[in-house]
């Protein structure tokens, strides 16, 4: 936290959690897909569902998916702009259960090349957010750091492959989480890094045996 978190941010109202946080969730989704999003099924949970319309959460999410910043004055017009830009969106309700944060949303996204991505995220206060799941698997990260998400078969050696690649590229690991569906099933590692990972290293990773999917969240603009 710094003094610009106290006086600031500059943002479109009315709520840091329900509006600015929602824009940020959209921003992270856009960067996760790595290309223009063409379709979005947006399912609101809890307080996002109950007070989202009054807080402009719906408009903020769509604005975020198009890459608008939290202080972009076009946020209230995002529905109209989405139509012009060819982003089809639908809103619905979902109950993500007691465990989910009250300000949560699940997004089913399709991007330009037909790639699909499912993201579950929450706005945890003061405009800060958490991505909770990607494609149905746990993935808790804030979107404040470059983040690598690797889906792989639960076999020995994949963590070592990924971390040696990072070492080789002089990328320092800030946080690391491992999850799996069950022994020998599907596993996912979520690694927040202090530096950006080179694109060619991600490509190399994708082609390794046992690696099912590589998703990278970069702080750089698309």
């Amino acid at each position, binding site marked *: 936290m710094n003094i610009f978190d*106290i006086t600031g941010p500059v943002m479109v109202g009315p709520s840091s959690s329900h509006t600015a946080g929602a824009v940020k969730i959209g921003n992270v989704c856009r960067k996760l897909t790595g290309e223009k999003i063409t379709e979005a099924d947006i399912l609101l949970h809890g307080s996002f569902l*109950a007070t989202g319309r009054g807080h402009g959460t719906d408009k903020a999410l769509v604005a975020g998916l198009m890459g608008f910043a939290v202080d972009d004055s076009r946020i209230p017009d995002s529905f109209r702009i989405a139509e012009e830009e060819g982003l089809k969106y639908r809103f619905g309700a979902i109950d993500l259960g007691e465990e989910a944060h009250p300000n949560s949303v699940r997004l089913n996204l399709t991007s330009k090349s037909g790639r699909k991505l499912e993201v579950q995220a929450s706005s945890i206060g003061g*405009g800060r957010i958490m991505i909770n799941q990607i494609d149905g698997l746990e993935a808790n990260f804030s979107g404040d750091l470059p983040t690598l998400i690797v889906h792989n078969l639960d076999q020995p050696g994949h963590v070592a492959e990924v971390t040696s690649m990072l070492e080789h590229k002089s990328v320092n690991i800030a946080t690391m989480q491992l999850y799996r569906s069950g022994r020998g099933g599907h596993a996912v590692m979520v690694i927040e890094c202090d530096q950006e990972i080179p694109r060619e290293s991600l490509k190399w990773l994708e082609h390794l045996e046992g690696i099912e999917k590589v998703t990278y969240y970069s702080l750089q603009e698309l």
Partner: protein
Amino acid sequence: MYHSLEEITEVCREENLPFWKAVILEDCKEEGITEEESMERMQEIYTAMRDSDRNYDPDLYSASGLVGTDAQKLRVYHEGGESMVGDFCGRIMERALRVAESNACMKRIVAAPTAGSCGVMPAVLISLQEKYNFTDRKMVESLYVASGIGGVIAMRACLAGAEGGCQAEIGSASAMASGAAVYLLGGSPEAIIHGSAMALSSLLGLVCDPVAGLVEVPCVKRNVIGALNAVSSADLSLAGIRSRIPPDEVIDAMKSIGRSLPSDLKETGRGGLAATAEGQKIRDLLHGIR
């Protein structure tokens, strides 16, 4: 970020620094940025505050229809010469409504410290600049004073209605604006923190009870009392009056009150004004059209 207001005044005393300088030096060190970069950013924040006041649309209502056009009504009333509080306070009241209504109408504002309390600081600061012709540079300095105070509140207590009730939002904004006002009028570091402490003391216990869970009723109008309370507390301090309870302990009291408040009164929309018959009627109506 400093952990106590006393610590800031100590740094000011020991190193013979103005309050704002003690704040900016500490922050630049922590963030690894230069003073120049920081000042440039703060100037942008001040410009955004002024824009949020200037860009008020007198015809606009929020999506729920609960707020809008009130700042304009107040202006017409003041211009008719009927106002009791006079020009300066009248301008402050109007600005607080302008910015807070703009926030509810999805316009661009500066969260200071939160979006719900965004009208307090611009109302006080812009009105003071208008009255005394302070330079922008001086206004930017006063924003560091306010941010230093807000930072201590964030470290010792909290700035979110969901955590501490409205006292943490409007109360903190009022304490920040009061300290900034004392600084602008030439008060000492000690006077600054006592202005803040008296402002916060007067709003202790204020609950967060938004109708239908929206940042509208009573949030928008509470910006008015936050702003007026900031200037009256600043005047108290500049007159040499002091908070009998040390400023840091006032912040600690805010934290403990926040903890004692039931969750119904902390941004859940379940207690207080939100739970009145009318409040529930509005909620049901709005949820019906969701």
